């Protein structure tokens, strides 16, 4: 069945919890305003189960109730994994067999973002969630530029290293920092390279969703909980297995 509703306590009850702050003092009207918002969100009846004044100007609410929306799982857009998951061995083999050289991957945390733990989890040999990172792959040459790398510097290093793929990480998202920086990066690469020579552009970070690739101008996006094996498999597919016929005919 593709039509579902949230489940609190019984099938189809549609129950949802929410909390938010309204910038108004706490009184009856504020509680009514909270109900109005919840109603607009499709929750009816909306039960304001908690309302707390936070100073004279703000009120915090906890609201429970059923929402009337139906979720159609057949209409859910997901970016399906369109490449096979490879073990490090298989990935190495595919590169060796089809490419006959090592694949060069340049990674960085761009802009003013200094959160390297995520990209390190993907790139460093230590890896993540029990999987070894890209450095563990013999057929990958991994260049990790670290934190707070300016986009021009990244392009320069990409050229110098003859990068096949660029991995950028963005963790800070306040005021859409991650989106702005990543767009700046992809634009710079499109400018610096002819499209068919451009390295594969990959962006990652906990608040990206895979659907954003188009908007960001990158080839692929990885979100929360990505493992190195997924990234390696994607790269092999994008740069080796899938491109192979194209390169041959070229």
């Amino acid at each position, binding site marked *: 069945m593709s039509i579902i509703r949230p*489940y*609190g*306590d*019984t*099938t189809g009850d549609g*129950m949802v*919890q929410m*909390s938010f702050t309204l910038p108004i003092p706490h009184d009856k009207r504020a509680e009514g305003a909270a109900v109005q918002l919840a109603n607009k969100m499709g929750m009816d009846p909306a*039960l*304001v*189960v*908690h309302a*707390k004044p936070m100073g004279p100007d703000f009120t915090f609410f*906890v609201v*429970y109730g059923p929402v009337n929306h139906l979720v159609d799982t057949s209409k859910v857009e997901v970016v399906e994994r369109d490449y096979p998951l490879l073990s490090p061995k298989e990935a190495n083999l595919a590169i060796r067999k089809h490419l006959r050289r090592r694949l060069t991957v340049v990674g960085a945390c761009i802009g003013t973002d200094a959160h390297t733990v995520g990209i390190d989890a993907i790139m460093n040999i230590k890896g993540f969630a029990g999987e070894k990172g890209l450095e563990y792959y013999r057929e990958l040459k991994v260049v990790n530029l670290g934190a707070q790398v300016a986009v021009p510097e990244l392009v320069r290093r990409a050229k110098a290293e003859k990068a096949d793929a660029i991995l950028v990480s963005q963790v800070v998202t306040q005021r859409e920092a991650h989106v702005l920086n990543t767009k700046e990066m992809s634009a710079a690469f499109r400018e610096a390279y002819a499209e068919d020579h451009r390295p594969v552009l990959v962006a990652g970070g906990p608040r990206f969703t895979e659907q954003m690739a188009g908007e960001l101008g990158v080839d692929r996006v990885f979100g929360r909980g990505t493992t190195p094996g997924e990234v390696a498999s994607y790269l092999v597919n994008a740069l080796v297995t899938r491109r192979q016929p194209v390169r041959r005919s070229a």
Partner: protein
Amino acid sequence: MKKLDLDPVTVRKARTLARKAGRPIVNLARRHTTVSVERAVLRLAGLAGADSEGIPWVNRLADTVRADVGLEHGFALPVWDALLRGEAEDLGVLAQKAASGSVTFRLPEGRDAQRARTAARKAAAAGIKRIDGRRRERERLIKRHGDPEQRPWIYLIVATGDIYEDIPQAQAAAREGADIIAVIRSTGQSLLDYVPEGATREGFAGTYATQENFRLMRAALDESSRELGRYVRLTNYASGLCMPEIATLAGLERLDMMLNDSMYGILFRDINPIRTFVDQRFSRQIHARAGIIINTGEDNYLTTADAVEAAHTVTVSQLLNEYFAKEAGLEDWQLGLGHAFEINPDLPDSFRLELAHAMLARQLFPEAPLKWMPPTRHMTGDVFRGYLLDGFFNLVGAMTGQGILLVGMMTEAVVTPWISDRDLALQNVRYVLGAAGNLHEDFRPEPNGFIAQRARQVLGESVELLEQIVDDGLLNAIGDGTFGLMKRPQDAGRGLEGVARKSGEYYNPAIELLEEDR
């Protein structure tokens, strides 16, 4: 884990006083019977099912018998006399005839009475044998699947009102780590003077306790036990007007624990005190036989009385529950005495007061699997705060070696638990037990510090209250609002019409069997 330096003389004194206070009640209970005790005998003898209106055959039969010969002799003599007289080939048919008015009952005398007694005893014994079988079955399954690895055991509630929603939720909860599943009852069931029949889907804030629901859930949890390699226990409520019958059904369907408090029905359902004490003694005899762990209800007092002011009433009730339980044949390991984390969290040092109370209970009843109940009264719609309070509740549970941990829900003040509430709640328990479960090793309150003094104070107040109760009589104390601030006089309350003083001819084969085997 003897961390409080309690005076053993005071402790002994408290127990002696509880016995003194309880003994007159036991005598009272022995002198009376109730419609539900008598119906329980019929259930033991195998009478089940209901008429087309859903009224159980035991009620149909019981009502006719009572109309014909009264309640005071018990139902065993008139019923088996009728069967011996050939009024019907079995209890089921007899009940149908009784309902249609085609049979009249009498109190047999002399040889007839003797034969009726023998037949009744045989029929009741068959039921008790089934209960014994269930108990052995449980022991076998525990041996096979194993007991939970940790103490406290994790106790979770399901309460959808629909047994077919309850089952997947219970199984999900077991999978997430629940050791015990309690199926909460529909509001109002406790005031029904009959036990509903069949699988039910229409409870309010709980699911009806019926034999079929018991069976379905126990079977589902047997499946879960197999899947999880850990025997998952099932709990329900032996309380309300049908307490003895429900206890019997629990024994027959291998429930593992039953809520069964000596005063809950009186205080919180306004059930007549005498009715309650009679019913309660019988149900505890059944539980004792069935190897069922009882859970007492001291936590409830603290929803109407203040948890600090009334702390000693909890202790007194625990001592009374212990006395009544042992008198009915229950052993220490069957005494899930209740207490709760209900102190106003805004009170300075509230956490340390909770620790003091919990340690006192732990030390007074070292062999009992105490049941530690979460905050409810001071839970609000602020579910974040609620989640935190539950964490500190869990911490007290871990630090004081409680036996059974009823898992608190962050939505306590909002709804009966959602599936996600249980999941989050279990995660809370797991964190606390895993991260801080051994903290008790590092925790030793000053011999004369805040915690020790508070515990001694509560124990002292308990002794004083028990002394008063011994002087006044427990029934008067209940009538005066001693527990949970509820005043319940002995001559009022629901179900009084279902109580009778036993006659000289009274015969109850179940009680006879339950008492002689001890």
